């Protein structure tokens, strides 16, 4: 906690080793109430390990963490009353119906019997599963299972929600349904920690992003800030003829970079409009034909590849 700003998730110096294998190194993370925080990293970066520690499933070997103000090791029971977890698998019972699943999890969350049944019905309705609520889950599609799993994570309307790769393996339509459900939750003020391998997902849903790799935090910021860290906008010209490449590079200034194979020349463009008009005018005056010209903002993919091992 800092003054009046209350960190719903507060991680300090958190470390985890599995035997001799380190999974997390002295990680720090502070997520204020109501934030949707994207945790990005390649496979094996430690995302799931972090989620498992924060949801009390795994004990850390160093440092400490609090969720909603409660220590995840010493006050695990208090933490469990305030969180929802949606894991990588749809952790639901295949042989029960959707309604029976939610009813069971609600009873195990200690809701009274009638409240539990009512809450199950309400959540099925909200996730578009009301029609199939009486069918066994084994007959559900992947997207329906994931939505049921999401519903199961929301039984107690938890103030903090953990979503571990909620759309991995889903088709685009199911993914959109899960995304819109997450946006609704964010709109209601839930604090959400979302892990993903999909940069697009983090870009669309998260207001803050942390990138971890090899168990360490390698970058943090808003999506726009992260994109800016790798050099900001660039002006790009694709020349019609390879012979013109040196001339184009001359026009774009001393920091121009030539890619021979694609006949592409690019250079930093701190002022987007000036860089573009300058390039267009220069090309016209020199009589050089261009196939394409534009100013491009780096994508989160580039940030990701630049910062993580996956890109090296």
């Amino acid at each position, binding site marked *: 906690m800092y003054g009046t700003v209350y960190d719903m998730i507060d991680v300090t110096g958190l470390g985890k080793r599995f035997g001799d294998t380190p999974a997390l190194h002295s990680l720090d993370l502070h997520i204020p109430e109501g934030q949707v925080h994207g945790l990005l990293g390649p496979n094996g970066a430690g995302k799931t390990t972090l989620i*498992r520690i924060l949801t*009390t499933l795994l004990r850390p070997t160093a440092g400490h963490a609090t969720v909603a103000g409660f220590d995840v090791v010493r006050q695990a029971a208090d933490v469990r009353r305030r969180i929802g977890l949606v894991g990588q698998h749809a952790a639901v019972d295949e042989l029960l119906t959707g309604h029976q699943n939610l009813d069971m999890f609600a009873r195990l969350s200690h809701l009274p019997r009638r409240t539990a049944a009512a809450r199950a019905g309400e959540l099925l309705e909200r996730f578009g599963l009301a029609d199939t609520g009486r069918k066994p889950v084994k007959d559900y599609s992947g997207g329906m299972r994931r939505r049921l799993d999401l519903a199961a994570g929301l039984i107690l309307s938890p103030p903090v929600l953990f979503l571990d790769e909620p759309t991995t393996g889903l088709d685009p339509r199911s993914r959109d349904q899960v995304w819109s459900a997450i946006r609704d939750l964010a709109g209601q003020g839930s604090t959400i920690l979302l892990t993903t391998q999909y940069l697009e997902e983090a870009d669309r849903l998260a207001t803050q992003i942390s990138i971890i790799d090899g168990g360490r935090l390698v970058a943090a910021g808003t999506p726009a800030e992260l994109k800016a860290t790798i050099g900001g906008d660039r002006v790009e010209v694709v020349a019609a003829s390879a012979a013109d490449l040196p001339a184009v590079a001359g026009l774009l200034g001393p920091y121009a970079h030539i890619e021979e194979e694609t006949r592409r020349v690019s250079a930093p463009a701190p002022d987007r409009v000036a860089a573009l008009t300058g390039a267009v005018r220069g090309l016209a005056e020199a009589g050089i034909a261009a196939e394409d010209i534009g100013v491009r903002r780096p994508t989160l993919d580039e940030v990701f590849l630049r910062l993580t091992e996956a890109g090296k």
Partner: protein
Amino acid sequence: MRWALADGWTITRRDLRHWANQPGQIIVGLLFPVLIVLMFGYLFGGGMTVPGGGDYREFLMPGMFALTMVFGLETTFAAVSTDAARGVTDRFRSLPMASSAVVTGRAAADLLNSVLGLAVLIGCGLAVGWRAQDGPGRAALAIGLLLLLRFALLWLGIWLGLVAGSPDLLVAVQILVWPIGFLSSALVSPATMPGWLGAIAEWNPLSATATAARELFGNPGWGGDSWAAQHAIAMAVAWPVLIVAVFFPLSIRAFRRLGS
């Protein structure tokens, strides 16, 4: 404590709902031992002789009761390992429920399943001419010993399921149950086996319970004269107690280790 019981019941009821949702599966599970009774009682039974003289089907039924308890190991293993692999166990562990309920609820559900299985098989036994000859008191004791064996194997099943972490090994468990079943006095007399094999069969926990059940039901036994055969009832208590003593703590440890 109140929640431990209530949550345990919620987990047990989950299995009852499985049965209601998939009656086919439970019926097949219940009828499988009946099929074996018919196979051994009528197909192979003609070639079987009980050493002390006596009806083979009278000899067979207590052995089948005990063997059915051992089959229960597969049910426990499948349920525990599937929950672990699917993330259902993790979901339970992230809920504000009594964590003991995950195990106690499972135990109660599996025992109920076995009580049902035993009831069906006793009905089948009565239909093929088997009788409890020594009165209801000793018969109840025999049923108690059978369920004690099942209770002990619960902990072996829970431990194996948690350690395996996925139902991939289910087939291995199913296959392993057979040699354990055959290498006992459940279906045939160990006296007909080569000496060293017979000795293993006599000391098999399954044999202890089968022999004790024959004694208590007043059914013909195979009349072995080893210490284990002479003290079958004591062995039918000692083996399960030993199995619980080993695998109950191991199960609890395996459950705790999920968090490390």
